[in-house]
């Protein structure tokens, strides 16, 4: 920091100011409409002049450059200019937007008005650019305060500009000098402020980094304590599993995004070539997960086998650390219609082979169990002196336990092969739908888990029925097509597919749970809800998070709803960050007795 400041001051003494050309990129994108609406063609003449001056001045200063573009190596708000020439001057692109009128420039001074958002700033800077007058410098001063990383560039441009101005006709030279000095002072002030701000930001970042590391440590410790399976805990396993969990979470995020892309691509009716690329990409992404799991298996196979990394509902179906391929195929087959005869045969034989392989693996695992049990019970269990058991037998048992890793890896291999074979058998569009279906199936399981984890537990099921009313319970239980779920205007709605219904069910059920919890204040002595019937705000993020997960899934499916039927399902707010308001509105819309299970959102 010290170095840069000295260089800037050095430069400042040499060449006073110009403007932040670094804003060009932003300007170009943000204010074209404004320009054409508000300003007239009168500015163009000035623009051309300014352009020529800038070009010549830049050329001149590039030759006599003494200032190093010590760019702070950051990718900040103005990527276009900053990254285009990372180590050189910003390109001499002239911003073509006219200058602001004088009054608006004079008001913000001293870098105090630095709360303007980037659009305003860019507007001001853009509008000043074309005018090589003092306005530019003042705007530059404002900008310098706000955006530190261009303060360097700014100083140079201040340099350029002054040379440009000095090269213009000599009228008002003394006035220029005084103004120049004033501007320099302003710039210094602004630059200093921005440096301070940057320091504070860095400190904040570092402290949060420390906090994060601390939290991770705590989490690992808690995890190793909570899941102490009697194995070899050690730092390796816990960090290996922690890392896997983090990577898996990231993988899930990526997966969601890819599913959305795939869905969009499918429904945009892209040509097969493009779709193929996306589908292949998805397959590769799945392969990545298997690689992650292989690494995790080496570190701690029990983490994978016990399914701690998955959600409860997924754990239900866990087979050797993941999904069972033949089950998945069984689920997928009816969803993939229409299929050719050959494809059906192919998938059926794939399913059968997978089943045989799974059976073989399960048998192998059982043999491992028997063998391990025999080893552990070796010798005499009655004797108090089990010193003889330690040593030889224990080592044997350890060796056998290590075989588990092989089983999980083989099971993952099966899964991977299943996916690849499906990709081979199906056409590209079918494969796309297949991957989407797999993604959605697992999404549903995850949603189910979310709901399960946060189901209301204060009351017995009988009490639940009573409080909720029978229509409620019914809506929660038969969430399938044809189910008498949601009454809207007295007509049971017709759903296009169970997919959408289940998801909106989940979403709604979630809201209902939310509302139910809210409504249950008066009854529960240990309720977390306050007297006025509001859930404490810390509840909100948790539920909101879950709602968002569900919401993502619903958004994915929303496009599949035919237009005619749209009215019969719940249309949800499309904007994610408004979900809080939506949730509150939804909750408010449900009467306390919870008799009417429908919630209508605005679109």
């Amino acid at each position, binding site marked *: 920091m010290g170095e840069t400041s000295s260089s800037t001051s050095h430069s400042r003494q040499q060449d006073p100011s110009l403007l932040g050309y670094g804003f060009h990129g932003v300007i170009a994108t943000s204010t074209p409409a404004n320009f054409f609406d508000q300003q007239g063609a009168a500015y163009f003449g000035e623009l051309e002049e300014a352009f020529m001056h800038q070009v010549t001045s830049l050329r001149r200063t590039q030759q006599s450059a003494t200032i190093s573009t010590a760019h702070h190596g950051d990718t900040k708000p103005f990527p276009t200019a900053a990254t285009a020439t990372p180590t050189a001057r910003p390109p001499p692109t002239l911003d073509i937007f006219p200058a602001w009128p004088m009054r608006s420039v004079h008001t913000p001074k001293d870098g105090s008005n630095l709360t303007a958002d980037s659009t305003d700033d860019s507007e001001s800077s853009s509008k000043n650019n074309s005018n090589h007058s003092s306005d530019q410098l003042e705007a530059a001063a404002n900008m310098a305060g706000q955006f530190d990383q261009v303060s360097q560039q700014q100083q140079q441009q201040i340099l350029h500009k002054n040379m440009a101005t000095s090269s213009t006709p000599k009228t008002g030279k003394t006035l220029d000098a005084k103004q120049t000095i004033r501007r320099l002072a302003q710039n210094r002030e602004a630059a200093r402020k921005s440096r301070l701000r940057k320091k504070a930001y860095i400190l904040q970042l570092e402290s949060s980094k420390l906090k994060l590391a601390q939290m991770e440590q705590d989490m690992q410790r808690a995890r190793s304590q909570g899941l102490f399976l009697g194995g070899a805990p050690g730092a390796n396993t816990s960090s290996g599993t922690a890392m896997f969990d983090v990577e898996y979470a990231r993988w899930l995020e990526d997966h969601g995004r890819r599913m959305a892309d795939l869905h969009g691509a499918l429904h945009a009716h892209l040509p097969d070539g493009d779709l193929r690329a996306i589908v292949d990409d998805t397959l590769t992404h799945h392969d990545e997960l298997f690689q992650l799991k292989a690494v995790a298996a080496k570190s701690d196979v029990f983490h994978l086998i016990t399914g701690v990394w998955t959600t409860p509902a997924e754990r239900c179906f866990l087979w050797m650390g993941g999904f069972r391929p033949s089950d998945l195929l069984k689920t997928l087959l009816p969803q993939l219609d229409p299929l050719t005869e050959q494809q059906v045969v192919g998938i059926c034989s*794939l399913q059968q082979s997978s089943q045989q392989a799974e059976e073989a693996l399960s*048998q192998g695992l059982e043999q491992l169990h028997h063998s391990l049990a025999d080893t552990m019970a070796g010798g005499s269990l009655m004797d108090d002196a089990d010193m003889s058991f330690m040593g030889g037998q224990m080592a044997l048992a350890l060796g056998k336990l290590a075989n588990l890793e092989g089983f999980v890896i083989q099971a993952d291999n*099966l899964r991977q092969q299943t996916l690849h074979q499906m990709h081979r058998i199906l056409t590209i569009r079918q494969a796309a739908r297949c991957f989407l279906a797999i993604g959605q199936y697992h999404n549903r399981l995850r949603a189910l888990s979310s709901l399960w984890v946060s189901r209301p537990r204060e009351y017995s099921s009988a009490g639940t029925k009573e409080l909720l009313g029978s229509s409620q319970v019914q809506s929660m239980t038969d969430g399938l097509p044809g189910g008498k779920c949601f009454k809207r205007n007295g007509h049971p709605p017709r759903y296009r597919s169970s997919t959408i219904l289940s998801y909106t069910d989940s979403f709604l059920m979630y809201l209902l749970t939310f509302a139910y919890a809210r409504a249950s204040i008066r009854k529960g002595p240990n309720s977390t809800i306050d007297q006025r019937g509001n859930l404490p705000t810390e509840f909100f993020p948790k539920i909101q998070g879950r709602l968002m997960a569900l919401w993502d899934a619903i958004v994915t499916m929303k496009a599949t709803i035919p237009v005619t039927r749209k009215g019969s399902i719940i249309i949800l707010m499309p904007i994610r960050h408004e979900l809080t308001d939506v949730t509150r509105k939804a909750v408010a819309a449900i009467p306390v007795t919870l008799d009417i299970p429908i919630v209508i959102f605005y679109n």
Partner: protein
Amino acid sequence: MDRVTKLASQRAVVIFSMSSCCMCHTVTRLFRELGVNPTVVELDEDPRGKEMEKALARLLGRNPAVPAVFIGGRLVGSTDKVMSLHLGGNLVPQLRNAGALWV
């Protein structure tokens, strides 16, 4: 090594295994499910087992040399290779060609 090849070429399907290895049991089980009657050579019960194991390890290029599957005298590979072949639908034809399956 030559003992390996000798044993491998005697029957249509030969699996080199070890009685303590559960993965070998898996592979054997898979072949039995397919209706094949594989010949299982337990290396730990064979007097020349150790050298065979070393030879197989060299052949397969990996340390747990077992299970090692030979079909029609040719090395197929270990568990993952067999599984991949089977899922790809190529195992059964290979078995038929080797005469291990008649159905």
